[in-house]
Structures are given as structure tokens and as C-alpha cells.
């Protein structure tokens, strides 16, 4: 059931060298690339517009908007998405961008958390991510507090799981230059999240994408917001360090 086309193989069983790291964008059809490139046709921009409205909307009992503290997102949020998940000193754990947004809502707006994958949370995350478009993904291992989480994420990435007994690395490190059922296997570079997936007919987060992959491996998916998923996100960001942010990307 797994058909692998023959092609020159990259170094098996290892990390992808920096000069071979490629965004999934390079593997898409021209039409899908054009859809992403033009803001007038990129449907992810609809979420960016929603996010911009939410950025200025007063919320919670504190009656404050994101903009009341952070000002113009184009200045204050530039580069932020390139360095998340980040270490939260107060909670002594790694937080991804959605968790940071919700923490900010709880602590500064006195508002309730937005549910994972809700339209509002995706819109805000996409809007913040958009401010970093074109910037290189930062190396999270520069923060020593994050190294244990990156290692934990690496272990999950390399661990065989599910009824198909596959690890993430078997496809995305070892066989990214081949095809699976006629579609290119990507490197799993996390450049475009949250991204508009044509299959989803909407925007989704990296956690949703990882859970999709786990269901495909017939494994029990990790819960949204679980430390396992955040550690995986963190390790995947480390794998993608140096690649440019594309948010909101379009993928098939």
C-alpha cells in the first residue's frame, strides 16, 4: 500500500542538511503556488483580515484590545511567529503561539481562553504569523531552557508508533524525495502555519496537521495543547531553522 518511486536517495536515517531543506511550497503545482503568492487569491488572507479585526476588538472584563498594549502588529509582532514555541519563565514550560495568545487573554484581558482550532484563535494566530512573512525561522536551541523540550520532541519524531509502526522521520527525514500514493512526501518543514489546506477548505494549525498525520499512521493522536505536541512543534521548528516564514501558506 505504500508505493515509493525510485529516485536518488538523501542520506538515510539522518537530519536533512541545511542546503537541502526545502519548504513544501517547492513541491506544489504551479497553480497552488500562484494561489499562495497572490494576496488577492490566497484564501488565508480572509483569516488575516479577521485576525486584524480581532486585534483591535476590546475583549474580557479588562475591556482591552491586543492593540491597546501591543500597538500596531506590523511593528510589535514582526518576527514573533519565527521564535515560537518559546519558553515561558513563569510557567517553566514551552508555549506555542496559540497558548501565548490565550495566556495573554487570561492575564491581561481577563478573558476566557479561545478553544483550539476555533475561528478566532486561528484568525489571531494567522494575523500574527503574517507579520513575520519572509523572516527566517529562529533556532530555538539558542535558548538553553528549550533544549530538553527539543530533545523530547526529537524522540517523538523518531519513535515508531501506531498500527503502521511508522515514525515521522521515516517519511519526512528518510524519504522526502519520493512519493506516497502519487503525492510528494514533504520534508515536514513548518514554514507556513497556520496554513490554508485545500483538503480542509480552511485554515488549520500545525497541531491539527500533526494529528492528521498520526491518524494516518493509525496512532492515537496527542491532545491539542498537550506537552507532546508542543515539544514536537518545537523540534520541527528546530528542523526548519533558517527557512522563511510563509504564513498564511496554501497547501493541497
Amino acid at each position, binding site marked *: 500500500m505504500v508505493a515509493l518511486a525510485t529516485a536518488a536517495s538523501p542520506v538515510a536515517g539522518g537530519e536533512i542538511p541545511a542546503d537541502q531543506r526545502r519548504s513544501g511550497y517547492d513541491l506544489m503545482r504551479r497553480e497552488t503556488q500562484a494561489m499562495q503568492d497572490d494576496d*488577492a*487569491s490566497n*484564501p488565508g488572507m*480572509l483569516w488575516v483580515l*479577521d485576525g486584524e479585526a480581532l486585534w483591535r476588538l476590546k475583549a474580557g472584563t479588562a475591556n482591552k484590545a491586543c492593540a491597546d498594549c501591543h500597538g500596531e502588529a506590523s511593528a510589535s509582532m514582526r518576527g514573533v511567529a519565527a521564535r515560537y514555541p518559546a519558553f515561558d519563565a513563569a510557567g517553566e514550560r514551552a508555549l506555542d503561539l496559540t497558548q501565548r495568545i490565550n495566556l495573554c487573554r487570561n492575564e491581561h484581558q481577563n478573558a476566557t481562553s479561545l478553544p483550539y482550532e476555533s475561528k478566532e484563535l486561528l484568525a489571531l494566530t494567522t494575523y500574527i504569523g503574517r507579520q513575520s512573512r519572509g523572516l527566517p525561522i529562529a533556532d530555538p536551541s539558542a535558548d538553553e531552557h528549550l533544549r530538553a523540550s527539543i530533545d523530547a520532541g526529537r524522540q517523538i519524531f523518531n519513535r515508531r508508533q501506531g498500527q503502521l509502526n511508522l515514525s515521522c522521520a521515516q517519511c519526512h527525514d528518510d524519504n522526502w524525495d519520493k512519493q506516497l500514493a502519487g503525492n510528494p512526501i514533504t520534508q515536514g518543514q513548518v514554514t507556513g502555519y497556520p496554513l490554508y489546506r485545500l483538503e480542509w*477548505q*480552511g485554515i488549520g494549525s500545525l497541531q491539527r496537521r500533526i494529528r492528521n498525520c498520526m491518524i494516518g499512521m493509525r496512532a492515537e493522536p496527542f491532545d491539542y495543547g498537550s506537552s507532546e505536541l508542543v515539544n514536537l512543534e518545537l523540534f520541527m521548528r528546530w528542523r526548519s531553522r533558517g527557512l522563511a516564514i510563509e504564513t498564511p501558506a496554501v497547501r493541497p
Partner: protein
Amino acid sequence: MARALISVPAKAARGEIITIKALISHHMETGFRHSTTGELIARDIITSFVCRYNGEEIFRADLSPATAANPFIAFYTRATESGTIVFEWTGDNGFSATEQAAISVE
């Protein structure tokens, strides 16, 4: 109102052929899917899109349940005079959205 993104060149030469793009957020529920509890999810789609250039209809499209969510429509027209281009989407459950853009023709 639904979020929409339209793209019309702000300026054009008289007689020039221009590209017009319209993208609107809509989930385009087909009416063929069932919920997790087995009930049919009612159809909820945009059924019609009309574009008018200074009141004159220059483009019309009927949309069907097979149209993907967040429909994107691109077409061409000839820039004849300065004025307003109006976009109108209508659909199930009284859905209605309007956007407009100004164009200056020299």
C-alpha cells in the same frame, strides 16, 4: 457580513483589458453531508455572483454545491470609463454580501 477580498486596478488606460478578482469567505456546505449523529446537514451555499460596472452587468456566475469553500472568481473586462465596480453575492438562508471598488480610467 462575510469577509471579502476584491482586487480591481485603481487606474487603467481607456480600452485596456483589466483583471478583476473576488474572494469571499463562505463555508459552502453542500447539503450532502451528514453530522456525526447521522442527520443531514442542510445546504448552505452562495448561489449567485454578479458584478456590475457603473450599473451595467458585466459578469454573472451561478454557484453549485460542488463549488469549494471560500469561492474565488477571476475574470476580465475592458476598462471603458471611470466609476464604480460593484460585487454582489447572494445565497441560501438569505445570504447577501456587497463590495465595491473605484476605478479611474484615463
